[in-house]
């Protein structure tokens, strides 16, 4: 009967009920949208950034404190045995050496300062370039170079053209080599595109006069959670001549950023909850004011205070259920849309390696939390009204005008 009365009351005071439901709907909708955006950002970080950097990296001692991350002063030699041994460790699915170096690309009278990467053609890393090839292939042979379409535009070059790569080699001598553009990529990050090119690892060794050397070893784990323990184990095994960093150390500032974002989400949700709860409390209070005499009658015929309290709260919970359901139902299609098509956020997040398009992610855990939050907001909002209604004396209620 309480639910029946609540439902009838909801219908009778439908304009104010609609206001309450609408506020809950909007609150839950934005909380869901924000969660979807944040989850997408976090997923983008874990899926893309970690696939660029690997879960563990090994460098020569001194690299970590070096100002220039592309310096050739920290090259490691004879790493093949180390790579083979490391590959055997349980939980590691891929180990690969990379040479990273600074260079100037030249074509005719145009030049561009850029980072070069000597990698393997079948690398599981650098998906940003590898999966976004728009012309040609990704590292055909030791004579080809892969650049972005933006670099091509800047150098006025096209597929098949030759460009010069000028470097300071391992011995600090200037050197250059021409390569044929064998592949052109276009990722979602303009910053990534203008800052990176790729040649084979062997081509890089020859270019830098660093045969048998590499600058970085990247390791990919089956389970990211094991990375920290494996990194520590590797550090002990390899000794002090090498620096082993797990993904948290590699992306220290980004990890803090992601954690901060966790706080932002909580703060945002709290703000939404406080604002909506206060509006809902007032709206519910107004509805209950219209029913004071009715409540007085119910109390007079035997309804207990706590039953009256329950009656008011039941109404709030029903409104919360409806509003929160609608909020989730409206947010999910939008999140799915942005999950597929991405949201263009300009170059704002590129410094975090997230690209100019942010793909949302639909996480049902987050949706459930937001749904429950919506119901709790309505519950909280109705608590005060329920308290006011149940505390009022019967005689006051019956004579309330």
């Amino acid at each position, binding site marked *: *009967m309480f639910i029946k009365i609540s439902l009838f009351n909801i219908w009778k005071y439908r304009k104010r009920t609609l206001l309450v439901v609408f506020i809950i709907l909007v609150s839950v909708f934005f909380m869901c949208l924000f969660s979807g955006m944040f989850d997408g950002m976090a997923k983008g970080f874990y899926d893309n950034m970690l696939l660029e950097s690997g879960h563990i990296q090994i460098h020569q001692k001194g690299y970590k404190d070096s100002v220039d991350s592309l310096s050739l002063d920290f090259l490691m030699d004879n790493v093949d045995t180390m790579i083979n041994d490391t590959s055997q460790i349980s939980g590691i699915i891929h180990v690969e050496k990379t040479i990273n170096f600074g260079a100037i690309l030249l074509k005719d009278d145009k030049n561009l300062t850029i980072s070069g990467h000597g990698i393997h053609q079948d690398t599981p890393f650098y998906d940003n370039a590898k999966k976004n090839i728009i012309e040609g292939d990704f590292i055909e042979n030791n004579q080809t170079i892969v650049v972005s379409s933006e670099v091509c535009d800047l150098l006025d070059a096209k597929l098949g053209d030759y460009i010069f790569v000028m470097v300071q080699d391992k011995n600090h001598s200037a050197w250059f080599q021409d390569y044929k553009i064998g592949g052109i990529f276009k990722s979602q990050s303009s910053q990534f595109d203008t800052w990176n090119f790729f040649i084979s690892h062997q081509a890089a060794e020859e270019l830098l006069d660093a045969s048998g050397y590499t600058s970085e070893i990247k390791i990919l784990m089956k389970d990211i959670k094991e990375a920290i323990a494996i990194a520590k184990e590797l550090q002990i095994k390899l000794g002090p001549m090498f620096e082993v960093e797990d993904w948290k150390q590699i992306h220290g500032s980004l990890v803090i950023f992601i954690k901060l974002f966790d706080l932002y989400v909580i703060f945002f949700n709290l703000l939404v909850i406080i604002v909506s709860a206060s509006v809902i409390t007032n709206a519910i209070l107004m509805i209950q004011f219209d029913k004071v005499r009715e409540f007085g*009658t119910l109390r007079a015929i035997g309804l207990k205070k706590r039953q009256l309290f329950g009656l008011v709260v039941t109404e709030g919970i029903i409104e919360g259920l409806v509003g929160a359901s609608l909020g989730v139902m409206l947010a999910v299609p939008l999140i799915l849309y942005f999950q597929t098509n991405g949201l263009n956020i300009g170059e704002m997040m590129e410094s975090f390696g997230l690209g100019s398009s942010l793909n949302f992610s639909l996480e049902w855990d987050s949706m459930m939390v937001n749904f429950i939050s919506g119901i709790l907001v309505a519950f909280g909002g109705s608590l005060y009204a329920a308290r006011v209604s149940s505390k009022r004396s019967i005689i006051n209620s019956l004579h309330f005008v």
Partner: protein
Amino acid sequence: MDEIIRFKNISKDYHLGKSVIHALKDIDFAIPQGSFLSIVGPSGCGKTTMLNLLGLIDKPSQGEIYFKGREISNLSDNQQSELRLASFGFIFQSFNLIPVLNIVDNIEFPLILAKTSKAERKKRVMRLVDIVGLRDFIDHKPDELSGGQRQRVAIARALVNEPSLVIADEPTANLDSITGESILEVMEQLNKEEKVTIIFSTHNLQVMKYAKEIIHLKDGVIESRKKVSAP
């Protein structure tokens, strides 16, 4: 005859700012079971206050109230609710029905609070619907009924839990004289047939004549109390 209710030195004061209004002053009386008693007097004499105290919907400033020999003025809020539900029925001047419920649901509501079985609820509600003559209106909402019909619903609701005492505050005040009389006839019939004690307030002479006993209130004190002989 056993007494159903007793007021012992009851006073009720209302504080309005700095002034104090003495609505009832040291009232002392008892009402036997099965009474059909009217409390009469001019406006502001304390009729409604007395009924509110009788029905435990207000608290006395001083004194004790006994129901069937047991003090009830010191009960907790929950105990008073339980007593009201089990033993008291209320009929209000302006009907006070639940607007969102239909006739049957309005009458049934006290039985749901009392956790009466569904079959018993249906039996009792339909019996009372027949007694108050509203069989053809059971699906109607209160605002689809006339004033007299609404008051009949309120009477049925007041009686559905088979209370020992029904309290009616000016039950005919919002009704025309013919409808008012028909309501009192129903109340009189229920008092006779169901043996329910009924106490009602009025300031209408036409209504007073239905009472078997009349208490005259004036300025918060009982001025007189007399039995009315049957015509």
